[in-house]
C-alpha cells in the first residue's frame, strides 16, 4: 500500500458529500445583491434545520438532547404513567371508582 492509498479521495466521478456542497454553495462564493432578495436569516434557519434533520433521534440522545423523555405530554413511559396512577389513586379516595 502506498502512502497515497491512505488518503480517502472523494471527487471526480464520486458524488460530493451534501454537507460539503451546501457549505460551499450557500456559505462561500461572491455575495451579490440580486433583484430578488435572499435573506441571510432564512439561510441560517435552514442550516440549523438541516443539522437537526440530519441528526437522528439516537444521535440526539447521544448528544444529551432527551428533553422529550421527561415530558409527560410527549413520553408514554415517562412521567405520564406516574401521573395517571396518581390520579387513579385520588379518584379511588374520593370514591369515584
Amino acid at each position: 500500500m502506498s502512502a497515497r492509498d491512505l488518503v480517502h479521495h472523494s471527487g471526480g466521478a464520486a458524488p460530493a458529500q451534501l454537507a460539503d456542497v451546501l457549505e460551499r454553495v450557500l456559505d462561500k462564493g461572491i455575495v451579490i445583491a440580486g433583484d430578488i432578495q435572499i435573506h441571510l436569516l432564512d439561510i441560517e434557519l435552514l442550516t440549523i434545520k438541516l443539522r437537526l434533520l440530519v441528526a437522528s433521534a439516537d444521535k440526539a440522545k447521544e448528544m444529551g438532547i432527551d428533553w422529550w423523555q421527561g415530558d409527560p405530554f410527549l413520553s408514554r413511559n415517562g412521567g405520564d404513567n406516574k401521573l395517571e396512577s396518581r390520579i387513579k389513586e385520588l379518584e379511588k379516595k374520593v370514591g369515584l371508582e
Partner: protein
Amino acid sequence: MIGTTPAVGWYVFGVVPSDAAPAPGTYLVERGPLAAIAAEVSLAEFGEEVLPERLNDRAWLEEKVRVHEAVLQSFVGVTPVVPLRFGAIYHDLGDVRRLLAERGEGFEAVLERVRGRVELGVKAWFDPTRVTRPAAGSGREYLQQRRDELSSARDAAAVAAAAHERLASTADAAVVNRPHPRELTGRDEQMLLNGAYLVPDGDETFAAEVARLAEEQLGAGITFELTGPWPPYNFAEDDA
C-alpha cells in the same frame, strides 16, 4: 391574464471570461471581457414570496444546490470561474450586464487569481480508538492508557493545526473553515480540520503532501480526506 408581472428571472451562477463556452442548459451573458453564466428560472419557484419556504424544503434545496455546483464544476480545468453564492437572481438581462459593469474589476481580479488553479478540500478526522498503543496488562497500565487517550485528543487538535500550516505552505492560498459537527457528518470520528486550498490544476505536490501527513499520523488515530477539485468557492471574495 391582465396585469401579471413577468414570471421568469435570470439566475446567475458565476462569472467567466467572455471567450468561454457555455455550460449545458445555461447562457453566457457577455459584457466586455466578462460573461455571466445565467439560466432562466421561474419566479413561481424563485420569487421573493416563495423563496423562504423553498429554502427550508430540504429536497428542493439539495436539488438546486447540486445544480449550482454542477454548472460551476463544468468549468473546472477548462476556464477560470468566479463562483457566486446561491441565489443571485435578476429580473432581466440588462440587470445582469449591469452587474458585470459594476463589479467587473473585482471579477477580473478574482479570475486572474484563480486562473489555472483549483480548490481542494482537506479534512482531518480523529478516532481515539485507532490510536496505536500496547495492550493494557495491569490496572496501573489501564489508568495510564486512559490518561494517554485524553492527552491524545489534545495532541490531535495540535496535529490538525500543524497539518493546516504545512498544507497552506504548499498551496497558493488557504482557508480554514469550521469543522462540521457530528450531527452533520453522522460519523463517530471527530472532524478536526476542514480546510480549503488553492493549488495549481493538475499539480500532484499538494496531494503528495496530504498523503505524507496521512502516513505520519496513522498511529495517532488521525485520518485525512481529500475532496475536489472544486470551483474556487473559498477564494472568490475580491479582497481575499
